[in-house]
Every structure is written in structure tokens, then in C-alpha cells.
């Protein structure tokens, strides 16, 4: 009887603590919002805040992809190169030779499906090397980062692509109900990610695999198939991030996505996703993205010279890590 009542008293506390781990970055976000308002009166205007979100959508999708992969206990560094190659290759299959295409002339409505397919194929190939060939995910995707980027440079001759189909630019540039389409898309995909990883067996299987793959296998999870699927989804999300970036900028440069992977890892890790697998949430990763977006925006509004931004980013990531470490209590692995 006493044991029972003790349990009753304990339960809500530990649940609250469990949720709390997800929210460690919320105070940081509030501080940043306050700091932003202090720095510039325009900061809290809806236009500016939408602008912050819009600029983070592409990065956020790659963070979502990386979060799924990290929770499954794997790694993918090549995502940033997919952000560049997938749209570039898809567009080149469609546009005429004089615009930089192959001259195959596939119908333009296929551009986006082709782009996503290319992302999926890169993920499939990563999965093949890691699961069938049993290579280390870190090294495989490091090599693929270079290979995929190199393929794009070779195919485009290092030049940017400017003449793009209008339909391809739509998602990255249009607005619905006053909110950019890219924000809608990213919002829906994050909501789907939160639901899948929080409330569905397949999503929970990622945690089981990342936490202890043998245990997951013994419980009947088809570990290889699921992880392979996660790599494919990761590739598709990175390709979609490429579509949004292209639409926003109106062209595809040879280094689209270059260097993103550091920010991606920073966002995921300060959002509480463990590099060892099995820990972290999609919502946490989202808060990580928001922190980075707000910092970027404040620096721009404050007129910090571009040369110093890198230093400030790095410093703020370190501070955010320390805050979440102190708030989260446990040593980070």
C-alpha cells in the first residue's frame, strides 16, 4: 500500500523531468528573443521572425535528417553535398544544353521528383556501403561527402546554374497565407517526425536500434532494413532542402550546402541528440535549429562584420552546450 502511494507520488515528477530534458534550450531561446529585441526594434516584428524561420528551413530539414540517423546510432556527413548535387543533377536532366544541361530534355514537371529520387539513391548507396559492406558510417559518409561534391563540380564544370524551371523555384519562394511555403513544408515534416519518433513503433525502433542494436534485433526489429530506410529518408530530406535553397536563391551554385554539416551537427547536439545514438528528440533538434537561426539573425541586425560571425557562432554553440549540460545534469558522451 505504501509502496503503491509512493509510486503514485513519484510518477508525475519523473515524467516532468523527462519532458524537461527536451526543453533545456527554451530558456536560451527566450534569452535570445530578449537580446534580439534589445539589439533592434525590428527584431520582434512578424516579418523579421518569419524571415528568421524562412532562412533556417533548408538547414532544419538536414538537421531533421541527421537527427533520425544519429538516433539510430549512425552518422551521415554526406548530406550537405546532397543538398547541392541533387537539385543540380535534376535540373541538368531537364534544361537545354545552352543553359548548362545535358540536353536530354526530360519534362520540367519531373524536376522535383528527380531531385528527391537522386537524394534517395545517395542514401541507398550510403546504406549499402555501411550495412552490406559493413564499413564505418563515419568514414563512408566522409568519403561520400567528397565524392558527391566532386560529382557536382565535375558535371557543372564548377559553374552555377541560373536558368531553372519556374516550377522548381516555386516551393522555395512562394507564400501561402502570408507564410512562406518552405516554412509550411518544414513545419509539417517536423510535426511528422515528432509524431513518428514519439508515438509510432517504427519511430521508437530507431531509439531501440541506437540504444542497443542486438536487443532491438532480439525483439524482432528488422535492424538493417530500418537503418537503411533511415539513410534513404535522410537523402530525400537533404534533396528537399536543396530544392528549398535553390528556390530561395534562384540559382544553384557549385558550393550549395558546402560547410553546412558543421551547423547541422551543432544544432542536433545542442538540441540534445547524442552522437552515440539512442538519445534525443526531433523537438529538441528543432530548438537547436532555432537557437542557431536567432543567433545568426541577431548578428546580422547588429551589423557584425562577416569575418567575425564564425567566431561568434562557435562561441555561442559552446555556451549553449554548457547550458544544456548544466540543465540536463548528465555528462555528455
Amino acid at each position, binding site marked *: 500500500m505504501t509502496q503503491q502511494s509512493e509510486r503514485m507520488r513519484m510518477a508525475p515528477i519523473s515524467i516532468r523531468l523527462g519532458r524537461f530534458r527536451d526543453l533545456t534550450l527554451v530558456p536560451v531561446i527566450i534569452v535570445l528573443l530578449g537580446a534580439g529585441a534589445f539589439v533592434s526594434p525590428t527584431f520582434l516584428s512578424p516579418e523579421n521572425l518569419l524571415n528568421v524561420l524562412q532562412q533556417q528551413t533548408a538547414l532544419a530539414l538536414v538537421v531533421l535528417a541527421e537527427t533520425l540517423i544519429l538516433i539510430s546510432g549512425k552518422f551521415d556527413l554526406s548530406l550537405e553535398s546532397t543538398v547541392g548535387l541533387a537539385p543540380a543533377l535534376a535540373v541538368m536532366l531537364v534544361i537545354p544544353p545552352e543553359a548548362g544541361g545535358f540536353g536530354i530534355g526530360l519534362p520540367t514537371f519531373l524536376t522535383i521528383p528527380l531531385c528527391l529520387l537522386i537524394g534517395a539513391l545517395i542514401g541507398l548507396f550510403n546504406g549499402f556501403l555501411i550495412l552490406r559492406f559493413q564499413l564505418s558510417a563515419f568514414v563512408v559518409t566522409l568519403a561520400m561527402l567528397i565524392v558527391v561534391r566532386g560529382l557536382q563540380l565535375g558535371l557543372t564544370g564548377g559553374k552555377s546554374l541560373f536558368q531553372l524551371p519556374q516550377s522548381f523555384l516555386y516551393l522555395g519562394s512562394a507564400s501561402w497565407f502570408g507564410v512562406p511555403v518552405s516554412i509550411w513544408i518544414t513545419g509539417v515534416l517536423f510535426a511528422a517526425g515528432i509524431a513518428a519518433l514519439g508515438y509510432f513503433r517504427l519511430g*521508437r525502433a530507431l531509439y531501440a536500434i541506437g540504444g542497443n542494436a542486438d536487443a532491438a534485433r532480439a525483439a*524482432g526489429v528488422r535492424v538493417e532494413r530500418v537503418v537503411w530506410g533511415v539513410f534513404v529518408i535522410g537523402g530525400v530530406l537533404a534533396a528537399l532542402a536543396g530544392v528549398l535553397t535553390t528556390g530561395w536563391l534562384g540559382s544553384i551554385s557549385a558550393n550549395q550546402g558546402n560547410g553546412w554539416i558543421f551547423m547541422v551537427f551543432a544544432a542536433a547536439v545542442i538540441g540534445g541528440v547524442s552522437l552515440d545514438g*539512442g538519445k534525443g528528440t526531433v523537438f529538441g533538434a528543432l530548438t537547436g535549429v532555432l537557437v542557431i537561426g536567432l543567433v545568426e539573425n541577431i548578428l546580422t541586425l547588429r551589423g557584425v562584420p562577416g569575418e567575425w560571425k564564425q567566431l561568434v557562432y562557435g562561441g555561442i554553440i559552446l555556451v549553449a552546450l554548457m547550458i544544456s549540460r548544466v540543465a540536463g545534469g548528465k555528462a555528455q558522451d
Partner: protein
Amino acid sequence: MTAVEAVDVTKRFGATVALAAARIRIEDGRTHALVGRNGAGKSTMVSILTGLARPDEGSVLFAGEPAPPLSDRDGWRRRVACVYQRSTVIPSLSVAENLFLNRQSDGGPIRWRRLRQAAQEVLERYGVAVPADRLAGDLTVEQRQLLEIARALSAGARFIILDEPTAQLDGPAIERLFGRMRGMKEQGVTMLFISHHLDEVYEVCDDVTVFRDARHVLTAPVAELPQADLVAAMTGDAVSLGERSDRPSPGEKVVLRAEGLTLAGQYEDVSLDVRGGEVLGLAGSGSSGKAAVAETLAGLRRADSGAAYLDGVPLRPGDVAAAVAAGLGFVPQDRGREGFVPLLSLAENATLPVAGRLGRYGTVSAPRQRAYATRMIDELDIRTSGPAQPVGELSGGNAQKAVLARALSNDPTALVVIDPTAGVDVRAKEALLGAVENAARGGSGVLVVSDDPDDLRVCDRVLVMFHGRIVRDLPRGWSDQELVALMEGIA
């Protein structure tokens, strides 16, 4: 009625034959022991009986019916459950989710509140006093094991394999586990119990099957098999343990002394003297503080008060390097964590503490390293392909020998060993204890910290700890019952 049967199962891994036409038959509702030395094929048989490995030849039958195909995990899970040696609990998930792993819902969204309630019911039905929303990583070893048993039973399996469940438990926890096993048996659960401790086999099992060198040797009811015959079946020839070997009586000089050591929450006012050539036992249950005392002497912990002396010279508290330099050899409790570096070779592991002495100006002489390792391979009978083999590839008993080789590498004045034979087979046990005695013969003072009567039988005398205090100084000639009673505090 036969619950489970493996018929003429052969399994090869590359060139090694893990099982050669081995068989086992487990009758319904009985507790069946599977014993054998390390490498006899027990683990492989477990993988085959749980459907994680496919036999190259032979078959598995459940109640006379052929086993389901390997891809049908649910089919296997309904027939057999296993509490593996290595925990299959996922530490980052809650107890509730671990219980219902991969069956949190019937395909729709997971309803967490209902899942937690269902988990709490399962835990209460099987008498596991753990909150369902606790993180599994925060549980004790015993609680995790109970969680695994509850998970096995709740999946509907009536046949459970317990793969060395007692290896990581202390005395009272083992008794509780046995009580639970008897309860399950009354409910008609069939069990396969794997253990290195033959007394446990006699305590809880009805039948026993012995494997040796990948083959089935015998199956018999436990009651009809004298312990000596069982040991003989395991080893191939008769081996008796714990015979008093001839050792000169200890010298007069005290080589290792503790004076009034106290560490809050661990032990209080512990004083002991180990003389040169003496083997002193320090016994006690898992919570007695005996391991903490040993770790303090080795410099892994720092006592609140009191002092330790090696050869009359005070040991600097909390300084492992100084203790090693002063001539203390140490075998830590958890060989996997503190005992060795799995990827480094046997030679490098064995000479880690003395690497500085093997060459000049910070270099390490590889030939000298090899020479030492080769000598140790001979002396301790380490089964290995050579000094260059990574220790992580060795079996448990041989890895433990490598750890002991390391502790002996600096010709220690005093040697402190914790649980030197945990989880190793009879033959390895003999070699390890022999090496400990050899060290004493060479003049070292040895402190054996253990709760295994076999380890303590080689000691000249045994100090028994209970709740952090030394409660008795037993001279040779104690009985197992007397020792266990003192360790459990019922004397």
C-alpha cells in the same frame, strides 16, 4: 513430454567448429542446467535455441514441432525467451518501453499512459518493484535482470533460457533469483540455466547436460550425479579444486598494511596486515565494502581517514601510478572496464604498468615486451594465438589471465586481486589461483578479495567483512556454511 529439443546440431564459424552434432533435450516443466568449460559451445547453443543463429546441420524442435523460420521473430518469441549474459535492456528507454519493445502498439499510435499502466501491471504480476516510467539505465543489475525475466514471461513464452544470470549478482540477490526460479517452476515454466557454479546447478536444477569441446557428453538428473563426476565430465579428467598446496609458511615481514581505513558509506575502521608470502582472504557480500577497501589500497579510491603502507612506506592516497611504482599489483573487479584495453595486444596489455622499464628514454622495447608476454603465456597457460593477439579477442578466462599477468608484471611486493575467477571455467580457475599462490611463493603478500569459497580456500586466513566492518578473522579449516553465514551476517 519434451518441451525443447535440439537434434544433432552442427555449427561452424569459419574454421572453428562451435558445435559438432550436439544435442540437448529439455523436459516440460523442469529446470535444466547446461554446463561446460569456456568454449564448450554453450553460447552457440543458446543462439540456436533462441533463433538468432541458424544451425549448419540438425534441427530444433519445440514440443515435437519444427521451430519456425528464423525470420519469424514473433514465432520464436512466443516459444522461447532468453535472459542473455549481456543485458538486452536499452538503457536510454523507460522500463515500460523496454517491457513492450517493438510491440508498444498494434500498429497505430502508441498510447503512452496505457502502455505505462500495462507495464506496471506486468511488473506487479511478476513482483518486480520498479516504477514503469523509470529509465532502464538507472536500474541496478538485479532489477534489470528481473525486468528481462518479466519481459520474457509477459511475451507468453513458457520456456526461458537464463544465460549465466548469477555472474553479476551478489549472494542475497542470487538467493532471491533462485526463489523466483522455483516460483516459476511451480507455475510450469521450463528453464534452461547456464552457470559456471556447480553448487548453483545442484541447488536449483533438476537435470544437467554437459558439453565439452563442442560435443554433448552427458545428460542426467542432478540428484543421480555426484559433483566429482560432473566436474570430470566437464574437464575430461578428474580435477579437484582447493586442495591445500604446499607453500612455505608466511614470513614475518608485513608487506601491506591498512590502519583504520574509513570511507563513508563504504567501510569503517578497516585494519589488516598481509605478510610476505602470505595469501590473505577478504570475504564479504557485494555490499560489504570489500571491493572498496581493495580499490583504496590500489589508489582508485581515497579513504576519508586512516592510512595504508606498502613495505612500511605510506601509500599516497588516490594515486594509482604511485602505488604501481611502489610495487603494488592490482586485478580490478570489472576486467572489461578497468582490466584491459581490448584492442591492444596481449603483450602490450600485460606490460602496461612497466612499459617505462622496458626501454630507454620513453621508448618501449618490443622484443622485451614479447619476451615477458611469452613467459606469462606459458606460466598462466593463456590460450592465445600469440603475444600479438588483441586481448579483446580472448575468452573470459584467458582475458582474466592477461589481467593477472599485468598485475604481476612489476614483480609486486604486494598483490591485490578482486574476484580473480569471476565468470571463468574450472580449468582457468585452477590456473589463476595457482598463479596467485605462485606469487606468494615468490615472497609477495597477496590479498584475495572475493566471495567465492573456491578463491578463499587457497588463503592462509580469511577476514570476513559485513556492512563495512571486519567481523571475523578465520584461520584455515573453515567450512563453506560457516563462511557464507558470516558473509550474510546470519552467524
